[in-house]
């Protein structure tokens, strides 16, 4: 008891650690999905293409580019050069690309209620250019998909975490059953239900805490490996900058959740054993 964990307790510890690992890994996967959906959503909202209609000539495109760089909602604007056009159209030579009167625009984040296209076209008109938004920022379609994906990732991870918590809770009940003789002894010696169950619950919660730390650390390590293998441009130098504090929430929650679930499971079981020992007949 006071020395190393026995074989059964070791097995129980790793059961709790595996559950904590699975929950934390699911949480990290949900965070990754959320970040991808967020990135997709931002890219969809923050990009537009403007086609210059009048006047004719390359000067108009240059004037439009200048007007756009001063227009509301615009972060940057750059005309589509022949080389860029060839790349977009899959042409081997830039000379083969037709002259384009298109300008790519990076937009600042704007509230959904803002009329981004209208504001930009009006700003161009003030600069003496008639233009239209060919590919306007899309706040109507597609946004729903990103929202759904983010919500599904969040609630899916929560549900999975809950299932893992139930597994920890049940495992802790088995652990409490191992401590049944202690509950019996404490009951016979005059411990109250809170004392007897609390003692067993504290031990289970401590084991849950350590198992959660182990499971959370393993999930964090797996997450780092996954980022290094799969995220473009990720390496050990850029890693710290890629991770936001919120991304670490599942790792931090694993030991706390495991400790709480294990403590509650053990307390419930020990309370039952106490009642059985306190009153025979």
């Amino acid at each position, binding site marked *: *008891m*006071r020395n190393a964990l*026995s074989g059964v307790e070791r097995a129980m510890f790793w059961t709790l650690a595996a559950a904590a690992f699975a929950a934390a890994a699911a949480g990290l996967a949900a965070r990754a999905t959320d970040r991808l959906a967020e990135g997709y959503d931002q890219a969809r909202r923050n990009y537009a293409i403007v086609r210059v209609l009048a006047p004719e000539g390359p000067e108009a495109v240059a004037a439009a580019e200048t007007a756009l760089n001063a227009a509301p909602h615009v972060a940057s604007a750059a005309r589509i050069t022949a080389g860029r056009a060839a790349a977009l159209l899959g042409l081997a030579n830039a000379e083969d690309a037709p002259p384009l009167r298109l300008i790519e625009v990076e937009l600042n984040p704007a509230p959904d209620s803002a009329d981004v296209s209208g504001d930009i076209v009006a700003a161009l008109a003030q600069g003496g250019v008639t233009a239209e938004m060919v590919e306007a920022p899309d706040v109507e379609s597609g946004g729903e998909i990103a929202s759904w994906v983010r919500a599904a990732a969040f609630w899916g991870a929560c549900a999975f975490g809950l299932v893992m918590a139930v597994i920890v809770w049940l495992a802790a009940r088995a652990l409490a059953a191992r401590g049944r*003789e*202690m509950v*019996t*002894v*404490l*009951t*016979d*010696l*005059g*411990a*109250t*239900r809170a*004392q007897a169950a609390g003692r067993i619950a504290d031990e289970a919660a401590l084991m849950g805490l350590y198992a959660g730390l182990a499971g959370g650390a393993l999930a964090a390590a797996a997450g780092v490996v996954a980022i290094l293998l799969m995220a473009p441009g990720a390496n050990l130098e850029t890693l710290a900058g890629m991770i936001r504090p919120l991304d670490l929430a599942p790792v931090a929650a694993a030991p706390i959740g495991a400790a709480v679930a294990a403590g509650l499971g053990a307390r419930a079981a020990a309370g039952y054993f106490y009642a059985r*020992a*306190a*009153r*025979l*007949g």
Partner: protein
Amino acid sequence: MARLNHVEVDLLQQGVLARLDGVDSGYGPTTVLLEIEFEARVGEVALITGPSAAGKTSLMHLLRLALPIRAGTATIMGVDVARATPNALAQAKRRIGYVGENPVFVEQWSAFDNIAMPLQVAGRRAQDYTDDVRELVDFVGLGEAADLPMEKLSGAERRRAAIARALAAKPALILADDPTAGMSPADGRRIVKLLAEMRRVGAGVVIASQDESLATCAPIQLWRIDRGKLSPAEESSTADVEPIE
């Protein structure tokens, strides 16, 4: 702890540690104890004898507040058993030392730690009770076996550990269910004398055993139980008492 009423206080004032008036008790559909009339008092030793399955152990469970009553009135350590709250019963249990027929221990713990458990439950700190527990270990003759895990102890050593644990918190009422089981007659008598000595420090002692000859170990109030019915027999005279070896 629940407030005591005036009857319960009176009983404690009179040195009555346990009083059973017309008590029935049992398990499930079976009533094992019938119309029990019994009293355990400060400084007295009672020996309850009877054949196997007569109800001795059930009576001990009743006295240690583990078996509910079905009829009659039971006042134990100043607590009316029928109407006491679970916490009040738990508090009263702390003043009862119990040596079970098959004592339960935390097997992975040392005998020392098991013996110290009543003091832990009472909220005492280890540095305050270590010397007392060592003294108790020597008193019951457990010696160096006290530092071994319980699972390594022999039957006789386990019984000594159980007695030491029962005495650790200096209880007012000591209950011993067949404390000489598995011991040689000489060792058994020594243990009973040792338990009976607790009367000198003001404890009441109740011993259950099939061996009626134990009544000669000390001034003992003898009771007989058969088929759940308890009746007083005779009090052994102090002249019969053998000295502790």
